[in-house]
């Protein structure tokens, strides 16, 4: 047994400690949290740049899922964690702009852009520096800072952490659809950061601080699952994989051309597909395996891939040394 195997074994033992003696793995979610379908559809659409035909591609991607958006309030949740003029940290403003246009054209009553940046409190700086301020002003879209929104105490529907409950922003409770819009990135703590991890941004910094360290202390993998099991509205994901990040993500990695946008209503399946596009094995990502117990589908056989073929768009995203084991794809 090498050191990594030893650590994995001891970590696994620690995680089941309260249930020692039980023969089966304990169920750590409420019945009402179970939303996993028999199979899930995920669309991969090619997109080479942030300029040409982006709005048409995003509209086409959303239409593939035939959602009834008439009269709905749609909340777009991009990843806007920090800004580096030389980096590719955030969901590109052009992707958000195209999504605003698309959801409106499909009949949404209101489109809101909302984010609770994880490192910086300074929304005004992040919005103006990233170009998103011009988008929301031009399109007359409401922006909500989820870090300082009014809050509701929400009982968590799963217990992969000891958090039990979290304050969540009121704006979530007043929307009909939450669209997670992450960047395709590797992550130095969690392996990858995609549509599920992007939901860290809905946890209010004014309550939990910057960075949202209370979630790290509770366990980053468990927190991702517990947040996603407990959000009060349906979700959809649009992953900005046109240019992603490899290496020491989510902030200091290097830009990597992905050339795709990924769509779907099952965030676990979307993230699994996004990971495979980075040639990262999703079944080795701890939070994805937990989420696949009840929130969505992870396996190839349970995901119906539509749009482009996965293997024709796979790119070798580099990971930091401790995650080299993620690069062995299964099947």
């Amino acid at each position, binding site marked *: 047994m090498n*050191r*990594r195997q*030893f*650590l994995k074994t*001891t*970590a696994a033992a*620690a995680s089941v400690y309260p249930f020692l003696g039980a023969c089966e793995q304990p169920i750590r979610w409420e019945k009402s949290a179970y939303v996993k379908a028999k199979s899930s559809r995920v669309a991969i659409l090619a997109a080479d740049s942030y300029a040409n035909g982006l709005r048409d591609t995003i509209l086409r991607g959303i239409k593939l899922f035939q959602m009834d958006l008439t009269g709905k309030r749609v909340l777009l949740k991009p990843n806007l964690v920090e800004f*580096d003029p030389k980096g590719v940290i955030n969901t590109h403003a052009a992707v958000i702009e195209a999504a605003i246009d698309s959801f409106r054209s499909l009949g949404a009553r209101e489109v809101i852009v909302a984010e609770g940046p994880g*490192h*910086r*409190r*300074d*929304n*005004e*700086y992040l*919005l*103006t520096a990233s170009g998103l*301020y011009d988008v929301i002003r031009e399109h007359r879209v409401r*922006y909500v*800072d989820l870090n*300082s*929104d*009014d*809050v509701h105490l929400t009982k968590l529907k799963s217990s992969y952490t000891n958090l039990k409950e979290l*304050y969540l922003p009121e704006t979530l409770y007043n929307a009909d659809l939450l669209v997670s819009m992450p960047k395709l990135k590797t992550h*130095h*703590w969690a392996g990858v950061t995609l549509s599920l991890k992007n939901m860290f941004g809905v946890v209010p910094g*004014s*309550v*939990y*601080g*910057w*960075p949202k*360290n*209370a979630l790290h*202390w509770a366990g980053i993998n468990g927190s991702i699952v517990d947040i996603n099991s407990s959000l009060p509205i349906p979700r959809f994901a649009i992953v900005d994989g046109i240019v992603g990040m490899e290496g*020491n993500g989510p*902030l*200091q990695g290097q830009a990597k051309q992905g050339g795709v946008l990924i769509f779907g209503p099952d965030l676990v399946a979307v993230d699994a597909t996004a990971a495979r596009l980075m040639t990262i094995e999703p079944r080795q990502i701890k939070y994805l395996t937990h989420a696949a117990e009840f929130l969505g589908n992870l396996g190839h056989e349970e995901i119906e891939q539509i749009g482009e073929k996965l293997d024709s768009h796979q790119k070798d995203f580099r990971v*930091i*040394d*401790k995650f080299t084991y993620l690069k062995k794809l299964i099947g």
Partner: protein
Amino acid sequence: MNMLEAATTLLSRGQNSDGGWGSVAGKGSNTEATALAFLALRSLGGHDIATQKAGQWLAERQNPDGSWPLSGMMKGSSWSTALALIALSDSADQRDRIVKAGNWVLEQEGSKPGILANLILALSFEKKIVHLNEDLIGWSWTPHSFSWVEPTSYFILALKKIKSHLPAKPVQERVEQGELMIYDRMCEGGGWNYGNAAVYDDRLWPYPDITAIALIALQDRRERKENQSSLRALTDMAQNTGSGLALGWTLLCLSIYGQDGAELKKRLEQQFVKTKFLGETKALALSVLGLGSGARYFRV
């Protein structure tokens, strides 16, 4: 109407009927926004009814243990206790509240990673992700979690302002330890972000707002080389950063350190024309404080 008048009007209009302010107009009152707006209007004079109501909001929200909750709709103690204390620290009639809150502050401290976590890390022989001294304790955002630069700076400043009401030795010990923690987290070349200077071997960059807040907390250490380099870093950052929050805190800091902020005041006005600071109460309040004579509330 000049920018100071326009920002003051926006700020005044945002006051809730309960006397407090929310993060933006229309949101429920919270302690941080109310404390900063209260100080901003007080700094101008002539807003007696508004400041009286705000002072009352703050006084009535104090918890029995001396702390303040984050907002009117939440129970429990919060980091924003430090800002309520700073806001009320000059009020002679609030002495009992200040003493009670000060004692609560002295009891709070950030936590360290547990023995098990350290053991696992040591056994893994993995490269350390972050490089900071976990034994230095300041204040955290939430109970039982790690110390970070912004809450530690607020609490240090609050303790320095009310130290005459508290026993000297515990105040000195906590302040010194908190200052060491802040210096330990300084970015290379000066300045601070939330509290992490590097991940693996990649350096992280400082933020102007946090750098200004930390420098204000460390104002009585201004001769230290870390303060000097961070002050230079702040003035460099201020050239490229446009936001009410960052420029407001920077102006307050420069005033406290005796530096000229005339150019930044012009930039603040230009930014206000462009964005109205997104209507954020704290940015409006800090800009009013920074443009006027608000630095006196943050001096020790």
